[in-house]
Protein backbone atom coordinates (compact mmCIF):
# COMPACT_ATOMS: atom_id res chain seq x y z
CA UNK A 1 0.00 0.00 0.00
CA UNK A 2 2.75 2.40 0.99
CA UNK A 3 4.69 1.83 -2.24
CA UNK A 4 1.58 2.43 -4.26
CA UNK A 5 1.01 5.82 -2.62
CA UNK A 6 4.61 6.94 -3.10
CA UNK A 7 4.47 5.75 -6.72
CA UNK A 8 1.40 7.81 -7.34
CA UNK A 9 2.88 10.91 -5.74
CA UNK A 10 5.93 10.48 -7.92
CA UNK A 11 3.78 10.31 -11.00
CA UNK A 12 2.04 13.60 -10.19
CA UNK A 13 5.44 15.15 -9.62
CA UNK A 14 6.60 13.82 -12.98
CA UNK A 15 3.72 15.54 -14.77
CA UNK A 16 4.33 18.80 -12.92
CA UNK A 17 8.06 18.78 -13.55
CA UNK A 18 7.56 17.98 -17.26
CA UNK A 19 5.12 20.87 -17.70
CA UNK A 20 7.36 23.20 -15.73
CA UNK A 21 10.50 22.32 -17.71
CA UNK A 22 8.78 22.81 -21.08
CA UNK A 23 7.28 26.10 -19.87
CA UNK A 24 10.62 27.39 -18.60
CA UNK A 25 12.51 26.46 -21.78
CA UNK A 26 9.71 27.94 -23.90
CA UNK A 27 9.74 31.17 -21.85
CA UNK A 28 13.51 31.51 -22.23
CA UNK A 29 13.22 30.92 -25.98
CA UNK A 30 10.35 33.38 -26.17
CA UNK A 31 12.37 36.14 -24.53
CA UNK A 32 15.20 35.40 -26.97
CA UNK A 33 12.94 35.11 -30.03
CA UNK A 34 14.53 38.24 -31.53
CA UNK A 35 17.87 36.46 -31.70
CA UNK A 36 16.99 32.85 -32.56
CA UNK A 37 14.82 31.50 -35.32
CA UNK A 38 11.75 29.44 -34.49
CA UNK A 39 13.31 26.27 -36.01
CA UNK A 40 16.06 26.41 -33.41
CA UNK A 41 13.37 26.70 -30.74
CA UNK A 42 11.93 23.39 -32.02
CA UNK A 43 15.31 21.72 -31.54
CA UNK A 44 15.71 23.17 -28.04
CA UNK A 45 12.25 21.92 -27.08
CA UNK A 46 13.07 18.52 -28.57
CA UNK A 47 16.22 18.33 -26.45
CA UNK A 48 14.11 19.14 -23.38
CA UNK A 49 11.61 16.37 -24.20
CA UNK A 50 14.48 13.91 -24.74
CA UNK A 51 15.94 14.95 -21.42
CA UNK A 52 12.61 14.35 -19.67
CA UNK A 53 12.32 10.95 -21.42
CA UNK A 54 15.55 9.83 -19.79
CA UNK A 55 14.05 9.98 -16.31
CA UNK A 56 10.25 9.90 -16.44
CA UNK A 57 7.50 7.48 -17.41
CA UNK A 58 6.01 7.40 -20.88
CA UNK A 59 2.82 9.37 -20.11
CA UNK A 60 4.46 12.50 -18.65
CA UNK A 61 6.92 12.43 -21.55
CA UNK A 62 4.14 12.19 -24.13
CA UNK A 63 2.42 15.07 -22.37
CA UNK A 64 5.67 17.06 -22.63
CA UNK A 65 5.88 16.18 -26.36
CA UNK A 66 2.30 17.28 -26.99
CA UNK A 67 2.59 20.41 -24.87
CA UNK A 68 5.85 21.51 -26.46
CA UNK A 69 4.40 20.99 -29.97
CA UNK A 70 1.40 23.11 -28.99
CA UNK A 71 3.53 25.87 -27.46
CA UNK A 72 5.83 25.89 -30.45
CA UNK A 73 2.87 26.20 -32.75
CA UNK A 74 1.09 28.95 -30.81
CA UNK A 75 4.01 31.10 -29.68
CA UNK A 76 6.70 30.60 -32.30
CA UNK A 77 5.38 29.43 -35.71
CA UNK A 78 4.12 32.43 -37.68
CA UNK A 79 1.44 33.59 -37.48
CA UNK A 80 2.21 33.79 -33.77
CA UNK A 81 -0.46 33.60 -31.03
CA UNK A 82 -2.74 31.42 -33.14
CA UNK A 83 -3.21 27.69 -33.75
CA UNK A 84 -3.03 28.11 -37.52
CA UNK A 85 0.19 27.32 -39.36
CA UNK A 86 1.27 29.66 -42.14
CA UNK A 87 3.12 27.42 -44.60
CA UNK A 88 2.92 23.73 -45.64
CA UNK A 89 6.57 23.41 -44.75
CA UNK A 90 5.85 24.53 -41.16
CA UNK A 91 2.85 22.21 -40.94
CA UNK A 92 5.11 19.31 -41.98
CA UNK A 93 7.71 20.51 -39.52
CA UNK A 94 5.17 20.57 -36.72
CA UNK A 95 3.89 17.08 -37.52
CA UNK A 96 7.45 15.72 -37.70
CA UNK A 97 8.31 17.45 -34.47
CA UNK A 98 5.45 15.72 -32.70
CA UNK A 99 6.31 12.29 -34.18
CA UNK A 100 10.03 12.55 -33.31
CA UNK A 101 9.27 13.66 -29.76
CA UNK A 102 6.81 10.78 -29.27
CA UNK A 103 9.10 8.13 -30.80
CA UNK A 104 11.90 9.46 -28.64
CA UNK A 105 9.74 9.06 -25.56
CA UNK A 106 8.62 5.55 -26.51
CA UNK A 107 12.15 4.27 -27.27
CA UNK A 108 13.70 5.66 -24.13
CA UNK A 109 10.87 4.14 -22.12
CA UNK A 110 11.44 0.73 -23.74
CA UNK A 111 15.16 0.79 -22.98
CA UNK A 112 14.46 1.66 -19.39
CA UNK A 113 12.01 -1.23 -19.08
CA UNK A 114 14.57 -3.71 -20.38
CA UNK A 115 17.08 -2.33 -17.87
CA UNK A 116 14.59 -2.78 -15.04
CA UNK A 117 14.03 -6.39 -16.06
CA UNK A 118 17.77 -7.02 -16.04
CA UNK A 119 18.15 -5.58 -12.56
CA UNK A 120 15.27 -7.72 -11.31
CA UNK A 121 16.80 -10.81 -12.84
CA UNK A 122 20.14 -10.04 -11.27
CA UNK A 123 18.52 -9.51 -7.87
CA UNK A 124 16.72 -12.83 -8.19
CA UNK A 125 19.99 -14.56 -9.03
CA UNK A 126 21.70 -12.97 -6.03
CA UNK A 127 18.91 -14.05 -3.70
CA UNK A 128 19.16 -17.56 -5.08
CA UNK A 129 22.92 -17.54 -4.57
CA UNK A 130 22.52 -16.33 -0.98
CA UNK A 131 19.85 -18.94 -0.36
CA UNK A 132 22.13 -21.67 -1.68
CA UNK A 133 25.08 -20.60 0.48
CA UNK A 134 22.76 -20.41 3.42
CA UNK A 135 21.38 -23.87 2.74
CA UNK A 136 24.87 -25.26 2.27
CA UNK A 137 26.25 -23.86 5.49
CA UNK A 138 23.11 -24.82 7.36
CA UNK A 139 23.03 -28.38 6.12
CA UNK A 140 26.73 -28.64 6.85
CA UNK A 141 26.23 -27.33 10.35
CA UNK A 142 23.36 -29.69 11.07
CA UNK A 143 24.59 -32.75 9.22
CA UNK A 144 28.11 -32.81 10.63
CA UNK A 145 27.02 -33.44 14.22
CA UNK A 146 24.25 -35.78 13.09
CA UNK A 147 26.76 -37.80 11.05
CA UNK A 148 29.03 -37.96 14.06
CA UNK A 149 26.25 -39.22 16.29
CA UNK A 150 25.02 -41.82 13.79
CA UNK A 151 28.52 -43.01 12.91
CA UNK A 152 29.74 -43.23 16.47
CA UNK A 153 26.66 -45.07 17.71
CA UNK A 154 26.89 -47.46 14.72
CA UNK A 155 30.39 -48.34 15.82
CA UNK A 156 29.37 -48.77 19.43
CA UNK A 157 26.37 -50.94 18.56
CA UNK A 158 27.95 -53.05 15.80
CA UNK A 159 30.76 -54.68 17.65
CA UNK A 160 31.65 -53.29 20.98
CA UNK A 161 34.31 -55.93 21.63
CA UNK A 162 36.48 -54.73 18.72
CA UNK A 163 36.75 -51.29 20.22
CA UNK A 164 39.25 -50.59 22.94
CA UNK A 165 37.94 -48.91 26.08
CA UNK A 166 39.84 -45.83 25.07
CA UNK A 167 38.13 -45.77 21.65
CA UNK A 168 34.72 -46.24 23.20
CA UNK A 169 35.37 -43.38 25.54
CA UNK A 170 36.40 -41.18 22.61
CA UNK A 171 33.32 -42.07 20.57
CA UNK A 172 31.07 -41.26 23.51
CA UNK A 173 32.81 -37.91 23.97
CA UNK A 174 32.29 -37.14 20.27
CA UNK A 175 28.59 -38.02 20.51
CA UNK A 176 28.25 -35.71 23.47
CA UNK A 177 30.10 -32.86 21.72
CA UNK A 178 28.05 -33.32 18.56
CA UNK A 179 24.79 -33.23 20.50
CA UNK A 180 25.69 -29.95 22.17
CA UNK A 181 26.71 -28.45 18.85
CA UNK A 182 23.43 -29.56 17.32
CA UNK A 183 21.49 -28.16 20.24
CA UNK A 184 23.25 -24.82 19.91
CA UNK A 185 22.44 -24.58 16.18
CA UNK A 186 18.81 -25.48 16.74
CA UNK A 187 18.58 -22.84 19.45
CA UNK A 188 20.04 -20.26 17.06
CA UNK A 189 17.59 -21.21 14.34
CA UNK A 190 14.66 -21.01 16.75
CA UNK A 191 15.79 -17.58 17.96
CA UNK A 192 16.27 -16.38 14.39
CA UNK A 193 12.77 -17.48 13.47
CA UNK A 194 11.46 -15.63 16.53
CA UNK A 195 13.06 -12.45 15.17
CA UNK A 196 11.96 -13.11 11.58
CA UNK A 197 8.37 -13.85 12.54
CA UNK A 198 7.97 -10.23 13.63
CA UNK A 199 6.05 -11.35 16.69
CA UNK A 200 8.90 -10.95 19.12
CA UNK A 201 7.25 -9.70 22.29
CA UNK A 202 9.47 -8.31 24.99
CA UNK A 203 8.76 -9.36 28.56
CA UNK A 204 10.41 -6.42 30.25
CA UNK A 205 11.12 -6.50 33.95
CA UNK A 206 13.65 -4.89 36.28
CA UNK A 207 17.07 -6.40 35.68
CA UNK A 208 20.11 -6.27 37.93
CA UNK A 209 22.77 -6.12 35.19
CA UNK A 210 25.42 -7.43 37.56
CA UNK A 211 23.29 -10.51 38.18
CA UNK A 212 22.64 -10.88 34.43
CA UNK A 213 26.33 -10.79 33.50
CA UNK A 214 27.44 -13.25 36.18
CA UNK A 215 24.56 -15.54 35.29
CA UNK A 216 25.63 -15.67 31.62
CA UNK A 217 29.29 -16.22 32.47
CA UNK A 218 28.29 -19.03 34.82
CA UNK A 219 26.40 -20.74 32.01
CA UNK A 220 29.48 -20.40 29.79
CA UNK A 221 31.80 -21.94 32.39
CA UNK A 222 32.85 -24.86 30.18
CA UNK A 223 33.41 -22.77 27.07
CA UNK A 224 35.42 -20.11 28.89
CA UNK A 225 37.82 -22.40 30.72
CA UNK A 226 40.68 -21.26 28.46
CA UNK A 227 39.56 -17.65 28.31
CA UNK A 228 39.51 -15.68 31.52
CA UNK A 229 36.41 -13.47 31.68
CA UNK A 230 36.43 -10.39 33.85
CA UNK A 231 33.29 -8.44 34.63
CA UNK A 232 33.45 -4.75 35.43
CA UNK A 233 30.16 -3.21 36.48
CA UNK A 234 30.00 0.50 37.37
CA UNK A 235 29.28 0.94 41.03
CA UNK A 236 25.69 1.85 41.90
CA UNK A 237 24.50 0.92 38.44
CA UNK A 238 20.71 1.37 38.45
CA UNK A 239 18.22 -1.36 37.57
CA UNK A 240 17.13 -1.39 33.92
CA UNK A 241 13.81 -2.56 32.52
CA UNK A 242 14.80 -5.24 29.99
CA UNK A 243 13.83 -8.67 28.77
CA UNK A 244 16.14 -10.82 30.90
CA UNK A 245 15.86 -13.88 28.63
CA UNK A 246 16.70 -12.02 25.43
CA UNK A 247 19.57 -10.11 27.03
CA UNK A 248 20.93 -13.43 28.27
CA UNK A 249 21.02 -14.67 24.66
CA UNK A 250 22.67 -11.44 23.50
CA UNK A 251 25.52 -11.66 26.00
CA UNK A 252 25.82 -15.42 25.72
CA UNK A 253 26.27 -15.17 21.96
CA UNK A 254 28.80 -12.32 22.20
CA UNK A 255 30.97 -14.04 24.79
CA UNK A 256 30.58 -17.47 23.18
CA UNK A 257 31.53 -15.98 19.83
CA UNK A 258 34.66 -14.49 21.34
CA UNK A 259 35.72 -17.84 22.84
CA UNK A 260 35.51 -19.46 19.38
CA UNK A 261 37.52 -16.89 17.49
CA UNK A 262 40.19 -15.64 19.86
CA UNK A 263 43.39 -17.55 20.70
CA UNK A 264 43.63 -19.51 23.92
CA UNK A 265 44.13 -17.47 27.09
CA UNK A 266 43.12 -14.21 25.45
CA UNK A 267 41.14 -12.23 27.99
CA UNK A 268 37.47 -11.32 27.59
CA UNK A 269 36.27 -8.23 29.45
CA UNK A 270 32.61 -7.36 29.92
CA UNK A 271 31.85 -3.82 31.12
CA UNK A 272 28.51 -2.31 32.03
CA UNK A 273 27.70 1.32 32.72
CA UNK A 274 24.90 3.84 32.46
CA UNK A 275 25.58 6.71 30.05
CA UNK A 276 22.90 9.31 29.25
CA UNK A 277 20.17 7.09 30.71
CA UNK A 278 21.26 4.28 28.41
CA UNK A 279 22.60 0.91 29.40
CA UNK A 280 26.00 0.50 27.76
CA UNK A 281 27.62 -2.92 27.70
CA UNK A 282 31.04 -3.59 26.16
CA UNK A 283 32.37 -7.03 25.35
CA UNK A 284 36.09 -6.76 24.58
CA UNK A 285 38.72 -9.34 23.85
CA UNK A 286 42.46 -9.36 23.35
CA UNK A 287 42.31 -11.54 20.23
CA UNK A 288 43.21 -10.60 16.68
CA UNK A 289 40.23 -8.39 15.95
CA UNK A 290 38.18 -8.43 12.76
CA UNK A 291 39.17 -7.48 9.20
CA UNK A 292 38.37 -3.75 9.00
CA UNK A 293 36.11 -4.14 5.94
CA UNK A 294 33.96 -6.78 7.62
CA UNK A 295 33.10 -5.12 10.93
CA UNK A 296 29.69 -4.05 9.68
CA UNK A 297 28.81 -7.19 7.78
CA UNK A 298 29.28 -9.55 10.72
CA UNK A 299 25.79 -8.72 11.97
CA UNK A 300 24.21 -9.79 8.67
CA UNK A 301 22.24 -12.99 8.72
CA UNK A 302 24.30 -16.02 7.61
CA UNK A 303 27.39 -13.86 7.10
CA UNK A 304 30.64 -15.71 7.77
CA UNK A 305 34.08 -14.13 7.88
CA UNK A 306 35.90 -14.75 4.62
CA UNK A 307 38.71 -16.82 6.13
CA UNK A 308 36.58 -18.39 8.83
CA UNK A 309 37.68 -21.90 9.70
CA UNK A 310 35.50 -22.84 12.60
CA UNK A 311 31.97 -24.11 12.20
CA UNK A 312 28.99 -21.84 12.55
CA UNK A 313 25.90 -20.74 10.70
CA UNK A 314 26.55 -17.02 10.86
CA UNK A 315 23.47 -16.58 13.02
CA UNK A 316 24.94 -15.76 16.44
CA UNK A 317 25.69 -12.09 15.85
CA UNK A 318 22.56 -11.43 13.78
CA UNK A 319 20.54 -12.73 16.74
CA UNK A 320 22.47 -10.30 18.94
CA UNK A 321 21.50 -7.49 16.59
CA UNK A 322 17.87 -8.64 16.36
CA UNK A 323 17.39 -8.88 20.13
CA UNK A 324 19.17 -5.58 20.82
CA UNK A 325 17.10 -3.81 18.18
CA UNK A 326 13.97 -5.32 19.69
CA UNK A 327 14.96 -3.21 22.73
CA UNK A 328 15.33 -0.16 20.43
CA UNK A 329 19.05 -0.39 21.07
CA UNK A 330 22.13 -0.52 18.87
CA UNK A 331 25.14 -2.80 18.62
CA UNK A 332 28.42 -2.04 16.89
CA UNK A 333 31.80 -3.64 16.47
CA UNK A 334 35.17 -1.95 16.31
CA UNK A 335 38.74 -3.08 16.51
CA UNK A 336 40.85 -1.99 19.45
CA UNK A 337 44.05 -0.26 18.26
CA UNK A 338 46.16 -2.32 20.68
CA UNK A 339 44.58 -5.52 19.30
CA UNK A 340 41.31 -7.30 19.81
CA UNK A 341 37.67 -6.57 19.13
CA UNK A 342 35.15 -4.49 21.03
CA UNK A 343 31.40 -4.91 20.80
CA UNK A 344 29.31 -2.06 22.19
CA UNK A 345 25.65 -2.39 23.02
CA UNK A 346 23.58 0.67 23.85
CA UNK A 347 20.03 0.28 25.05
CA UNK A 348 17.70 3.07 26.08
CA UNK A 349 15.72 1.72 29.02
CA UNK A 350 13.64 2.72 31.98
CA UNK A 351 15.85 3.15 35.04
CA UNK A 352 15.28 2.56 38.74
CA UNK A 353 17.86 3.77 41.20
CA UNK A 354 18.84 1.24 43.83
CA UNK A 355 19.59 3.72 46.60
CA UNK A 356 16.07 5.14 46.70
CA UNK A 357 14.63 1.72 47.48
CA UNK A 358 16.94 0.77 50.28
CA UNK A 359 15.03 2.52 53.03
CA UNK A 360 12.44 0.18 54.41
Amino acid sequence: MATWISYKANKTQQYLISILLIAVVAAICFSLSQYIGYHVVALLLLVTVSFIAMFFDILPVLLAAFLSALIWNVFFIPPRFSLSVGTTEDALFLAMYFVIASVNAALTFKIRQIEKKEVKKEQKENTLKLYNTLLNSLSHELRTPISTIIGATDNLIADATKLSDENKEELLTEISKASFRLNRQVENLLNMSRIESGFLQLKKDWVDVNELLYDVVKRLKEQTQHHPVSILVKENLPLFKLDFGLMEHVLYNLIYNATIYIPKYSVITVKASCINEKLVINVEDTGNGFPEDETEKVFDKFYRLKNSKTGGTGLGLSIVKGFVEAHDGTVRLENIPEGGAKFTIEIPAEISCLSSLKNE
Partner: protein
Amino acid sequence: MNSAEILIIDDEVQIRKLLEITLQSNGYKVNEAGTAKDGLITSANHPPDLIILDLGLPDESGHEVLRKLREWYSKPVIILSVQSNEEDIVKALDNGANDYLVKPFRTGELLARIRSALREAAKEENDPVINCNDLQIDLSLRTVKKNNDLIKLTATEYSLLALLAKNKGKVLTHQYLLREVWGPGYVSQSQYLRVFIAQLRKKIETDPNTPEFILTESGVGYRFVARE
Protein backbone atom coordinates in the same frame (compact mmCIF):
# COMPACT_ATOMS: atom_id res chain seq x y z
CA MET B 1 15.39 -43.87 50.20
CA ASN B 2 16.18 -44.58 46.58
CA SER B 3 13.45 -47.18 46.25
CA ALA B 4 11.04 -44.33 45.66
CA GLU B 5 8.49 -44.82 42.88
CA ILE B 6 8.46 -42.35 40.04
CA LEU B 7 5.75 -41.96 37.39
CA ILE B 8 6.81 -40.58 34.02
CA ILE B 9 4.06 -38.90 31.97
CA ASP B 10 5.54 -38.15 28.54
CA ASP B 11 4.30 -38.99 25.05
CA GLU B 12 7.76 -39.47 23.54
CA VAL B 13 8.86 -43.13 23.73
CA GLN B 14 12.53 -42.15 23.44
CA ILE B 15 12.37 -39.81 26.39
CA ARG B 16 10.51 -42.40 28.47
CA LYS B 17 13.15 -45.00 27.61
CA LEU B 18 15.97 -42.63 28.53
CA LEU B 19 14.32 -41.72 31.83
CA GLU B 20 13.52 -45.33 32.62
CA ILE B 21 17.16 -46.41 32.20
CA THR B 22 18.49 -43.37 34.05
CA LEU B 23 16.12 -43.73 36.98
CA GLN B 24 16.24 -47.52 37.28
CA SER B 25 20.01 -47.59 37.23
CA ASN B 26 19.86 -45.15 40.12
CA GLY B 27 17.62 -47.46 42.11
CA TYR B 28 14.20 -45.89 41.51
CA LYS B 29 11.09 -47.85 40.58
CA VAL B 30 9.61 -46.49 37.38
CA ASN B 31 6.08 -46.38 35.99
CA GLU B 32 5.16 -44.85 32.63
CA ALA B 33 2.23 -43.18 30.91
CA GLY B 34 2.12 -41.84 27.36
CA THR B 35 -1.02 -39.71 27.59
CA ALA B 36 -2.61 -37.31 30.04
CA LYS B 37 -5.55 -39.66 30.57
CA ASP B 38 -3.28 -42.63 31.20
CA GLY B 39 -1.13 -40.57 33.55
CA LEU B 40 -4.06 -39.42 35.65
CA ILE B 41 -5.49 -42.97 35.92
CA THR B 42 -2.12 -44.53 36.78
CA SER B 43 -1.32 -41.91 39.40
CA ALA B 44 -4.76 -42.36 41.02
CA ASN B 45 -4.59 -46.15 41.08
CA HIS B 46 -1.08 -46.29 42.34
CA PRO B 47 0.10 -42.94 43.76
CA PRO B 48 3.84 -42.53 43.10
CA ASP B 49 6.35 -40.72 45.30
CA LEU B 50 7.14 -38.27 42.51
CA ILE B 51 5.80 -37.46 39.05
CA ILE B 52 7.82 -36.30 36.04
CA LEU B 53 5.39 -34.50 33.77
CA ASP B 54 5.78 -33.36 30.18
CA LEU B 55 3.83 -30.23 29.24
CA GLY B 56 3.19 -31.17 25.61
CA LEU B 57 0.91 -34.18 25.84
CA PRO B 58 -1.24 -35.23 22.88
CA ASP B 59 -4.66 -35.42 24.54
CA GLU B 60 -4.49 -32.64 27.13
CA SER B 61 -2.08 -29.88 28.11
CA GLY B 62 0.35 -30.73 30.88
CA HIS B 63 -0.82 -27.59 32.71
CA GLU B 64 -4.31 -29.11 32.87
CA VAL B 65 -2.93 -32.45 34.10
CA LEU B 66 -0.98 -30.62 36.80
CA ARG B 67 -4.05 -28.72 37.91
CA LYS B 68 -6.09 -31.94 38.18
CA LEU B 69 -3.27 -33.72 40.00
CA ARG B 70 -2.93 -30.92 42.54
CA GLU B 71 -6.58 -31.38 43.58
CA TRP B 72 -5.49 -34.43 45.54
CA TYR B 73 -1.80 -35.17 44.96
CA SER B 74 0.62 -33.32 47.26
CA LYS B 75 3.91 -35.08 46.49
CA PRO B 76 6.54 -33.54 44.18
CA VAL B 77 5.84 -32.94 40.50
CA ILE B 78 8.79 -32.07 38.24
CA ILE B 79 8.01 -30.54 34.87
CA LEU B 80 10.05 -31.66 31.89
CA SER B 81 9.32 -29.66 28.79
CA VAL B 82 10.70 -28.46 25.47
CA GLN B 83 9.04 -25.11 26.13
CA SER B 84 11.72 -22.81 27.43
CA ASN B 85 9.62 -19.65 27.53
CA GLU B 86 9.37 -18.14 30.97
CA GLU B 87 5.60 -17.73 30.87
CA ASP B 88 5.02 -21.46 30.58
CA ILE B 89 7.47 -22.21 33.37
CA VAL B 90 5.98 -19.59 35.69
CA LYS B 91 2.49 -20.90 34.96
CA ALA B 92 3.52 -24.47 35.83
CA LEU B 93 5.21 -23.33 39.05
CA ASP B 94 2.16 -21.26 40.01
CA ASN B 95 -0.01 -24.31 39.37
CA GLY B 96 1.96 -26.22 41.96
CA ALA B 97 4.92 -27.79 40.16
CA ASN B 98 7.91 -28.23 42.44
CA ASP B 99 10.53 -27.87 39.78
CA TYR B 100 11.10 -27.74 36.05
CA LEU B 101 13.75 -28.79 33.55
CA VAL B 102 13.89 -27.81 29.92
CA LYS B 103 14.68 -30.45 27.27
CA PRO B 104 17.45 -31.19 26.43
CA PHE B 105 18.46 -31.69 30.06
CA ARG B 106 21.48 -33.23 31.77
CA THR B 107 20.65 -36.48 33.55
CA GLY B 108 22.89 -35.50 36.44
CA GLU B 109 20.85 -32.35 36.91
CA LEU B 110 17.57 -34.29 36.75
CA LEU B 111 18.76 -36.78 39.38
CA ALA B 112 19.88 -33.95 41.66
CA ARG B 113 16.47 -32.25 41.34
CA ILE B 114 14.66 -35.55 42.05
CA ARG B 115 16.79 -36.22 45.13
CA SER B 116 16.23 -32.71 46.41
CA ALA B 117 12.45 -32.84 45.83
CA LEU B 118 12.09 -36.23 47.51
CA ARG B 119 14.23 -35.15 50.45
CA GLU B 120 12.22 -31.98 51.02
CA ALA B 121 8.94 -33.93 50.74
CA ALA B 122 10.08 -36.42 53.37
CA LYS B 123 11.34 -33.72 55.75
CA GLU B 124 9.70 -33.30 59.13
CA GLU B 125 8.39 -29.76 59.35
CA ASN B 126 9.09 -29.38 63.06
CA ASP B 127 12.74 -28.41 63.03
CA PRO B 128 12.98 -24.63 63.42
CA VAL B 129 16.67 -24.59 62.47
CA ILE B 130 17.73 -24.82 58.83
CA ASN B 131 21.39 -25.73 58.37
CA CYS B 132 23.02 -25.28 54.97
CA ASN B 133 26.75 -25.70 54.81
CA ASP B 134 28.14 -22.85 56.93
CA LEU B 135 24.82 -20.99 57.05
CA GLN B 136 22.37 -21.46 59.92
CA ILE B 137 18.86 -20.03 59.92
CA ASP B 138 16.89 -20.27 63.18
CA LEU B 139 13.22 -19.69 62.38
CA SER B 140 12.15 -19.60 66.04
CA LEU B 141 14.75 -17.04 67.12
CA ARG B 142 14.67 -15.28 63.73
CA THR B 143 18.46 -15.29 63.57
CA VAL B 144 20.90 -16.04 60.80
CA LYS B 145 24.47 -17.12 61.42
CA LYS B 146 27.33 -17.68 59.04
CA ASN B 147 30.32 -19.59 60.40
CA ASN B 148 28.67 -19.04 63.81
CA ASP B 149 28.82 -15.26 63.38
CA LEU B 150 25.51 -13.50 63.68
CA ILE B 151 24.49 -11.71 60.49
CA LYS B 152 22.44 -8.53 60.86
CA LEU B 153 19.46 -8.61 58.52
CA THR B 154 16.61 -6.15 58.16
CA ALA B 155 13.09 -7.49 58.73
CA THR B 156 12.41 -7.72 54.98
CA GLU B 157 15.73 -9.34 54.23
CA TYR B 158 15.01 -11.91 56.92
CA SER B 159 11.48 -12.69 55.64
CA LEU B 160 12.84 -13.14 52.12
CA LEU B 161 15.66 -15.43 53.22
CA ALA B 162 13.41 -17.46 55.54
CA LEU B 163 10.85 -17.98 52.78
CA LEU B 164 13.51 -19.11 50.31
CA ALA B 165 15.21 -21.38 52.84
CA LYS B 166 11.94 -22.98 53.96
CA ASN B 167 11.45 -23.96 50.32
CA LYS B 168 14.98 -25.22 49.87
CA GLY B 169 15.58 -26.64 46.38
CA LYS B 170 12.34 -25.23 45.02
CA VAL B 171 12.06 -22.42 42.48
CA LEU B 172 9.99 -19.56 43.88
CA THR B 173 8.65 -17.22 41.21
CA HIS B 174 9.17 -13.46 41.36
CA GLN B 175 5.44 -12.87 41.83
CA TYR B 176 5.21 -15.42 44.62
CA LEU B 177 8.12 -13.89 46.53
CA LEU B 178 6.76 -10.34 46.13
CA ARG B 179 3.27 -11.39 47.26
CA GLU B 180 4.50 -13.34 50.29
CA VAL B 181 7.16 -10.88 51.51
CA TRP B 182 5.81 -7.46 50.52
CA GLY B 183 2.11 -8.17 50.05
CA PRO B 184 -0.37 -8.58 47.18
CA GLY B 185 -0.04 -4.91 46.18
CA TYR B 186 3.63 -5.34 45.32
CA VAL B 187 3.40 -8.19 42.79
CA SER B 188 4.55 -5.94 39.93
CA GLN B 189 7.20 -4.09 41.97
CA SER B 190 10.00 -6.45 41.05
CA GLN B 191 12.65 -3.79 41.57
CA TYR B 192 12.29 -4.36 45.35
CA LEU B 193 13.06 -8.02 44.87
CA ARG B 194 16.18 -7.30 42.77
CA VAL B 195 17.54 -4.86 45.33
CA PHE B 196 16.88 -7.05 48.35
CA ILE B 197 18.25 -10.19 46.70
CA ALA B 198 21.43 -8.25 45.90
CA GLN B 199 21.66 -7.02 49.51
CA LEU B 200 21.00 -10.48 50.93
CA ARG B 201 23.68 -11.98 48.76
CA LYS B 202 26.16 -9.38 49.96
CA LYS B 203 25.43 -10.43 53.53
CA ILE B 204 25.23 -14.23 53.30
CA GLU B 205 27.25 -15.26 50.26
CA THR B 206 31.03 -15.65 50.31
CA ASP B 207 31.15 -14.12 46.82
CA PRO B 208 27.89 -12.25 46.11
CA ASN B 209 28.55 -12.40 42.36
CA THR B 210 28.81 -16.17 42.24
CA PRO B 211 26.18 -17.10 44.81
CA GLU B 212 26.05 -20.60 46.29
CA PHE B 213 22.81 -20.23 48.27
CA ILE B 214 20.43 -17.99 46.32
CA LEU B 215 20.49 -18.96 42.67
CA THR B 216 18.95 -16.97 39.81
CA GLU B 217 16.43 -18.80 37.63
CA SER B 218 16.50 -16.54 34.59
CA GLY B 219 13.27 -14.68 34.06
CA VAL B 220 11.43 -16.99 36.46
CA GLY B 221 12.51 -16.57 40.06
CA TYR B 222 15.02 -17.64 42.70
CA ARG B 223 16.00 -20.95 44.22
CA PHE B 224 17.67 -21.58 47.57
CA VAL B 225 20.10 -24.48 47.40
CA ALA B 226 22.51 -26.25 49.66
CA ARG B 227 25.48 -28.26 48.50
CA GLU B 228 24.82 -31.99 48.62
